[in-house]
């Protein structure tokens, strides 16, 4: 998809006919019945990284958006009108995201906005939304302190200070089974939304008296993990804390394996889930998560239906990992938030929607969101998951752990 290519998702020929017929019926004073949509579509505009270095994750958000829109249209749409998703490819570039959000508002004249993928692109879109006073719900913003627009609503449920809460959760989880590390090696990509978490881990380790055996930063896109692995091996810490995004964790583990070294305990901030779980090297790997296709998170009928649809759609889209996890879950939650606000207020007015979300939060498959903290961030809903028997299980906090599972530490 090239620059500016536009995909409208959600209005099929049958739905268009139904919408036209519904409009005629409405004009004749005859109401619609449940499950039917009528009238002009509600147009939700957004961009995703469908090409470029972030495209592998952008593809997940496209699949989820399409699922949600199809479900919603089949259930009667938004305010009785079908939803149409005006989706543009920002090519993973923040500057293009900014231009396209401007276009969505001024040229395409969309009714509502849905955020792009990834922190930098969301930040670009947020500036545009702020200029036009539009509400911006988004799914994957990683640095809460940078989001100071009062009508932005994040579905990535980090809480206001993830640089403190996320590393603390790892130390707490290990401490709960008597495996508090004495030393930590912190190795991080310079990708902004993981680098600041790793920097926070240094502080948390210091506060808890855990000695820092190694701290390293490397460029996003680094290919050669051999020398980094050699330094990790030499540090031989009790906990390897990796500011990982994508496949960094798997690449580092492979490089360590070539040096005949396996970390005792190892944590990855945002790893690509499939390869870590399927590789023997990923055994006992820990990672952050907001959502997994696991009890108790997937117990609701909505979550179960979503899981079924996502498995099928992800396989059809040729995604290697077909279980809904953090990316898919928060993406779905973002659409749920926007829809809940519209249905509750019966309005597409940006101020009314923002007021509703600020006051009531939103119920989603990820959990109950609140936006009453600094920069519209509410409680931290992140969890810790671990690879056990070649599959991810949630192990922390205890009340949300996969039934029968506890963290395994060394």
């Amino acid at each position, binding site marked *: 998809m090239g620059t500016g290519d536009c995909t409208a998702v959600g209005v099929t020929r049958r739905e268009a006919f139904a919408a036209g017929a519904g409009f005629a019926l409405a004009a004749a004073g005859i109401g619609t019945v449940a499950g039917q949509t009528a009238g002009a579509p509600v147009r939700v505009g957004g961009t995703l990284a*469908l*090409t*470029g*270095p972030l*495209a*592998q994750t*952008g*593809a997940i958000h496209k699949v989820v958006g399409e699922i949600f829109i199809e479900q919603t249209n089949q259930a009667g749409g938004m305010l009785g009108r079908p939803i149409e998703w005006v989706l543009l490819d920002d090519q*993973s570039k923040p500057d293009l995201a900014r231009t396209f959000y401007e276009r969505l508002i001024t040229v395409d004249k969309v009714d509502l906005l849905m955020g792009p993928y990834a922190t930098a692109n969301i930040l670009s879109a947020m500036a545009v939304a702020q200029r036009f006073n539009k509400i911006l719900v988004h799914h994957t913003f990683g640095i809460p302190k940078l989001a100071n627009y009062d009508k932005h609503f994040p579905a990535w449920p980090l809480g206001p200070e993830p640089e403190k809460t996320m590393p603390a959760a790892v130390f707490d989880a290990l401490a709960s089974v008597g495996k508090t590390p004495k030393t930590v090696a912190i190795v991080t990509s*310079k990708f902004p939304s993981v680098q600041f978490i790793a920097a926070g881990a240094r502080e948390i380790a210091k506060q808890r008296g855990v000695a820092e055996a190694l701290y*390293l*930063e*490397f*460029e996003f*896109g*680094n*290919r*050669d993990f*051999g*020398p*980094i692995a*050699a*330094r990790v091996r*030499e540090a031989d810490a009790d906990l390897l804390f990796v500011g990982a995004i*994508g*496949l960094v964790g*798997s*690449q580092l583990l492979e490089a360590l394996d*070539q*040096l*005949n070294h396996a970390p005792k305990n190892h944590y990855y901030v945002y790893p*690509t889930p499939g*390869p870590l779980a399927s*590789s023997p090297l990923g055994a006992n790997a820990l990672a952050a998560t907001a959502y997994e296709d696991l009890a108790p998170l997937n117990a609701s009928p909505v979550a179960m239906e979503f899981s079924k649809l996502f498995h099928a759609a992800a396989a059809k*889209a*040729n*995604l*290697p*990992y077909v279980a809904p996890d953090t990316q898919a879950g928060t993406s779905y939650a973002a659409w749920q938030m926007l829809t809940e606000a519209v249905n509750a207020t019966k309005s597409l007015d940006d101020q009314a929607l923002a007021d509703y979300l600020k006051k009531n939060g939103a119920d989603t498959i990820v959990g109950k969101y609140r936006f009453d903290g600094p920069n519209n961030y509410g409680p931290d809903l992140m969890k810790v998951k671990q690879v056990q028997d070649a599959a991810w299980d949630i192990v922390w906090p205890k009340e949300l752990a996969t039934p029968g599972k506890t963290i395994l530490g060394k």
Partner: protein
Amino acid sequence: MSATLFGQSVLSGLFSGCLYGLLGLGLTLSWRFLRIINLAHFGLIFLAAYLTYHFVQSRGVSPLLAGAGLVPLFFGLGVAQQWLFIRFRVSELPSVIVTFGLTIIIEALIQWIWSADFVRLETHLVRGSLKIGSLLAPWDELIMGGFAVASCVAVWAYLNFTWAGKALRASLDDPDIAAAFGVPNRRLALVVSGAAAAFAAMGGVFVALLYTLTPSQIYSWLGVVIAVVLLGGLGRPLGVLAAGLLVGVAEAVTMALVEPAWAPIAPFSLLIAVLVLWPERI
């Protein structure tokens, strides 16, 4: 820093350097002898890597067998590409734009077929590592290094000790006089382009074996390999190998001694230093 850490880092750099040399070999040949700055070379490397992934992962073919099939196939692609360039008279500077466009097309094709998501080959040529004292050399990387050194030496020997190699160099100096002596300029150009693409295929097999693949990673190799090609001197197979080793070791030692984040600075610092101190080299 311990001697083991330093030695292990140097070893890792040597392996990276061998791969840089192998990936740069085809590029340096087409740049020097065809006057084509072939950025599509990187697209072909990744196309070969994805095809290797496909045949090995889905069809259970051995990586070397996949490579044996891909090398002649890509030779044909290279010949076809050069035929089109000759047909449409693509010269040196326009070739940058044309081949960049081809790279984007190849990237889109890869994404369309294999998706934008990460893929990783779970196969090894030989699992494990060779122990050299306290150092470990992974077998896959040793084999890759062997192929890289052999390829560069073979091309050097071909250029220097065969009639075709000498004809190629004569053709570069003065194509009209060379043609008068019976040098088939056009056919040689097709062979060089085919060989360059075949080396891209060979490099792609090892990229698939050693690295995780995503379509957009095509561009992450571009800067460092072009730096290696320029450092090595255009059309110099042994130069490109030596430059690759120098850059690889410089990156690895920077990672081990200073900060991994500084490693990308190494190749370009070397390039600038050579440009300033030894400009006639490039």
